[in-house]
């Protein structure tokens, strides 16, 4: 596994809604999708433009990594048949999240819901925040950030408050990478974190974002 990738590329992956172990194929696909959706045309709003530049920057960082670590792997979501079959149907993906026994499949479905670009996908995504497996919960946080779901704010903050420190750190990393508003409440809790290093990260984030 390559889950120990450098923080910079982990952050870049998070901007694309991807887990640290995502393969080249995942990166290309996510980039293509997101770039299409957030490409600012003449009438583009500032929020979209801001996101777009983050996405482009993240993709550049990932491309510049010293050579692909492994062979180009097939996308994670394609490893799991139910996720593949669900395609872009948010209801089918929601069913995978609710019933698939393999944690990997659930995490892939959550990631896919994030890439759907549909705010409505959050009704299904929110149940992944309570998934027994850490990887699924984290995938849900990434996906919610990707969707910019503000309705996730309180639940994501609650997840932060009840999680262990490694998980809290991973959440702050996503918050830092994406700069999404939904982490406002999470950061407000994190500045009181019992762990000094996390507190420091949160304070920096709070200062950057101005809340």
């Amino acid at each position: 596994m390559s889950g120990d990738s450098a923080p910079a590329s982990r952050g870049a992956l998070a901007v694309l809604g991807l887990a640290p172990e995502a393969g080249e194929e995942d990166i290309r696909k996510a980039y293509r999708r997101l770039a299409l959706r957030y490409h600012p045309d003449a009438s583009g709003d500032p929020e979209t433009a801001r996101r777009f530049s983050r996405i482009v920057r993240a993709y550049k960082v990932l491309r510049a990594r010293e050579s692909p670590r492994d062979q180009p792997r097939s996308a994670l979501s394609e490893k799991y048949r139910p996720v593949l079959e669900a395609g872009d149907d948010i209801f089918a993906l929601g069913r995978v999240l609710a019933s698939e026994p393999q944690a990997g499949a659930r995490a892939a479905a959550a990631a896919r819901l994030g890439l759907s670009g549909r705010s409505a996908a959050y009704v299904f995504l929110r149940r992944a925040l309570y998934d027994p497996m850490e990887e699924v919960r984290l995938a849900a946080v990434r996906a919610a950030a990707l969707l910019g779901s503000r309705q996730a704010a309180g639940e994501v903050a609650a997840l932060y408050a009840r999680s262990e420190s490694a998980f809290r750190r991973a959440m702050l990393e996503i918050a830092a990478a994406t700069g999404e508003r939904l982490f406002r409440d999470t950061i407000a809790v994190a500045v009181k974190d019992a762990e000094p290093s996390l507190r420091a990260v949160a304070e920096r984030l709070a200062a950057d974002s101005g809340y």
Partner: protein
Amino acid sequence: MGAIIGIDFGTTNSLCAWMDGDRPALIHNRRGGRITPSVVAAAAKGEILVGESAKNQALVNPENTVAGIKRHIGSGGLVSMGGRSWRPEELAAMILSSLRLDAESHLGTDIERAVITVPANFSDRQRRGIVEAGRLAGLEVLRVVNEPTAAAVARAWAASASPSGGERALVLVYDFGGGTFDVTLLVQEGTACEVLASRGDGRLGGADIDRELYRQASAAFREEYGLDVEADRFLAQQLAEASELAKMELSEREESAIGIPFALAGGKVVHPLWTLTRRRFEELAAPFVERSLELTERVLAEAGLSASRVDSLVLSGGSSRMPLVRALLAQRLGLKPQGGVNPEEIVALGAAVWSLVDAQPDRLRIRDVVSRSYGVEIDGGRFVPLIRKNSPVPASSRRVFTTVADDQDAVEIHVLQGESPEAAENVSLGRFLLSGLREAKRGEPRIEVSFGIDESDMLHVSAADLDTGALQEISIVDLESSSSAEGPAELGAAIRLLAGRLAELRSGLRLERGLESELDETCARAAAAGPGTEEPGLRLLKTELEALVGELLARRAERRAIAQADKERT
């Protein structure tokens, strides 16, 4: 397509009706009766008996006869009969199947669809159990309808045909059946019904009075004749039946006797007889009727209305035939039942009328109550309901909580659904965090938690620190909610409502382009949805709209919070 039947599946008796043109009519069973006892039995050769024939042989074959199966629906337990174990749903299906066959031979057509009534306080599991039983009986259960609401609908249907029927009326449905009691207060205007309040007791019914009669009679037999009824299942069964008969007889007569001829006590043949006057019977039944009146009074109090405002009292269920019921309702509440209504038939007739709801949504509109309690977990794992089961929709409630530790700066709100006082036994719907609390001694901060359920069944929960103004909220779409209770008519109405709300919520909000176009696209689909749209599609669309409403509500709350923060800074 075939006809749709309406079934009143009761604890003791079941009835079946259909819409004969514009008029609900009862369907007679193959024995020519209107009432089919809810009894199933396995005869000696493994033959399954249902209804009257099962009840008739109960005396000689009590081990293989099952009555009152309704009380076990959805329990997950097993019932033994004829040397094997059955799920309660399977036994209920035998009764439903027999009703279906009766209807088929009566109407001369295939019957594949039904509306089935249940007590208002039936849980989701019990409702699902009924749907399952229907499926096993070869019936697609279009709807599971609350019994009191069905009774009200039958009344409304009859009233709307009369010249003065279109007027607004306050109706109280007092439904005292064999196994359950329900009381519902509703407003009726033409054929539109709106439930104001409803309460019930799933363990209060005529069968409880029978049991009390049985208990006293068997005590008398033991004392006077030295006869131990309990020792002999045959005798016990005989006495149980005699008790029920005596109760029914006392609705008409002043005196009745419970007897078991030719019983053997201490080697001697005795003919124990226990004579009961109506006065004595009423003393014995009074606590049960009292309990029903107490619930009735509570429903009126909940709705904030006095009994004198009630325009029409509808009695339903066999136990409401007791003269004591009528006397106490008149004496205590000044209410007289509406004439021309057969309490035993009205629920089945209402179920039949209900089969028209989807076909003619304009003729019949019903708004119902919340089917489960919703609330939060508090310190010590206890569950505090904020919206109680059976509250009319839309419902809302708020309550102030506080902190449990000094200088606590955040509090987690754990939202649950269920009826147990223990949070762990209820279903968790979500947890969210309210941060930015005023730092103070424990018990000092005031955190107001509000719950609201709107007409589309969406749950909105918010928490606010009344001192700092910090606010957090979530909207929860209940993805598991029983889908059978909603037909295309209600879905269509909910979709229109939600689309309207979205339009309202988005005005004045600055949204990113992606969300704008998603809103446009979803609202366009909502506008295009019509009678031709398939039901699953409507359901999905409703969920999407709900999700978007949740998002916009959060955006509005965020905007308020930012404005508040800006104000404090300057």
